[in-house]
């Protein structure tokens, strides 16, 4: 089927408004080496030098969470362990992560994107889509991309750059933004698709990763064009009706990904925390405190969002990169850290004589709004909820883990020390800061 003809097929968006793919324009923004670039923006003497942002600084065993453009050229990649990065690039400068900075700046960037279009879909901390008006021409869409780049330079900083991709669907817009990095802009119009599909490997498409690619390659499919020529029945037989149909469609330039504003997205499906231990733990007893800390953090986040969940999952990664996971649905909905911990411990009993443990994760899913759950009838349960609420009030005012379970006292340093080396307790008010008349902080 001819792609240009096919791309003019109409579909209906939620809300009932039909927009032809020919007229649809989606802009994808991908911030270049986001964490590392922000550090270089903040500290100009790091510009032009290979830097790696690490979750725990260079002290504890750490993982490079982001590499600067210069470090990437030397082979440093996100997810690389600290020692591996050091071996590859001895001159690498390691900067501890400043997540407050990244999250705050992300919000500012997305607010700037909303100046370009009111309908944006946040894909990750450094990526977002924007739906441009269907009456916009491709030239005007390119101008909007250029305008966004200028806004970034003006309001975020001269060193911060992004790659922009514009196409008639989300998958192709994302592919377009990957084509010129850093600081590029690429358009894939319906008439460009056939040319680009002929030369682009399938793994460049978002959604085709290490699971799908080898199977497609085995079937003799290496480029997007070859994907489009593969019989739909074969793809459905290999990957099921949903993925098979999507692969066939995207191979023929039919990009049906629908963009919904992130402001109208449904609530989270799960809330979880994970932690890479500073050293491998050889018994589950040693890991229990970390599990309690993770459970408490999950509980705090659930209550802050007004959510309560019923399924608790635990994941353990071993030193040899192997893993073990288990989930269980509880009789009652829970949002308290200790209850989550108890459920996690019950699950861990199924793990007999594990190899040394490297990472622990706790997740609560099957979430509903707290208001949807019946309040407890028994007085002792209500009293316990009151206690948790009071603790939340204190911690919300003075900071996370101002008051915490005594069993976590040995982890206090880790709780209070922020990844960038600061200790959040230094910000607690001193007695002299309390106004004696109002009993409030001066």
């Amino acid at each position: 089927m001819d792609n240009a003809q096919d791309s003019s097929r109409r579909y209906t968006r939620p809300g009932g408004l039909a927009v032809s793919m020919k007229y649809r324009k989606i802009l994808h923004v991908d911030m270049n080496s986001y964490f590392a670039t922000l550090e270089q923006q903040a500290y100009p003497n790091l510009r032009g030098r290979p830097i790696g942002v690490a979750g725990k600084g260079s002290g504890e065993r750490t993982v490079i969470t982001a590499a600067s453009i210069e470090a990437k050229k030397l082979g440093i990649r996100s997810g690389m362990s600290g020692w591996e990065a050091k071996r590859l690039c001895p001159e690498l400068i390691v900067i501890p992560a400043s997540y407050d900075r990244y999250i705050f700046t992300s919000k500012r960037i997305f607010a700037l994107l909303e100046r370009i279009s009111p309908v944006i879909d946040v894909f990750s901390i450094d990526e977002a889509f924007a739906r441009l008006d269907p009456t916009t021409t491709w030239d005007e869409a390119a101008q909007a991309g250029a305008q966004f780049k200028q806004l970034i330079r003006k309001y975020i900083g001269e060193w911060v750059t992004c790659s922009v991709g514009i196409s008639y669907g989300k998958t192709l817009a994302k592919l377009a933004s990957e084509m010129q990095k850093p600081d590029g802009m690429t358009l894939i119009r319906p008439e460009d698709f056939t040319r680009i599909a002929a030369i682009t490997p399938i793994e460049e498409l978002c959604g085709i990763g290490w699971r799908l690619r080898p199977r497609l390659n085995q079937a003799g499919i290496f480029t997007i064009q070859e994907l489009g020529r593969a019989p739909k029945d074969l793809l459905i037989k290999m990957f099921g009706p949903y993925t098979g149909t999507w692969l066939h469609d995207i191979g023929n330039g039919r990009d049906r990904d629908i963009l919904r504003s992130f402001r109208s997205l449904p609530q989270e499906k799960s809330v979880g925390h994970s932690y890479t231990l500073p050293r491998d733990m050889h018994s589950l007893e040693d890991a229990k405190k970390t599990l309690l800390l993770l459970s408490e953090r999950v509980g705090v986040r659930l209550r802050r969002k007004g959510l309560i969940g019923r399924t608790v999952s635990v994941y353990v990664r071993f030193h040899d990169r192997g893993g073990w996971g288990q989930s269980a649905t509880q009789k009652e909905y829970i949002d308290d850290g200790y209850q989550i911990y108890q459920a996690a411990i019950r699950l861990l009993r199924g793990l007999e004589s594990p190899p040394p443990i490297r990472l622990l994760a706790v997740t609560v899913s099957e979430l509903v709004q707290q208001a949807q759950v019946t309040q407890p009838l028994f007085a002792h349960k209500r009293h316990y909820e009151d206690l948790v609420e009071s603790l939340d009030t204190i911690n919300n005012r003075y900071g996370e883990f101002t008051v915490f379970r005594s069993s976590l006292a040995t982890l206090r340093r880790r709780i209070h020390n922020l990844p960038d080396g600061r200790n959040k307790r230094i910000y607690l008010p001193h007695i002299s800061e309390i106004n004696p008349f109002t009993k409030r902080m001066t």
Partner: protein
Amino acid sequence: MSEVKTRVGESVKVVASFSPNRFKVHFFNWRDRTYQVQSMNLFHIARDGNKKLYHFAVTAAGNSYELVYNPVTLDWQLEGVVSA
């Protein structure tokens, strides 16, 4: 693999100007030496409980500094130095 960010965590005196939608740090005094701020590079707000802390990454005398303003205590801290 080297680390160039040094944590300081000391109080500093700051000269800053405020105008609508604009805020500028001009000088800060640390350990009896006055530094003229050449550029304000990046700004962010961090929350700790209900407190907001205003972080300013600035350049002065060839190095980069991170200053933190606590509007509750009206206190300025030099959070860290990134030396070349």
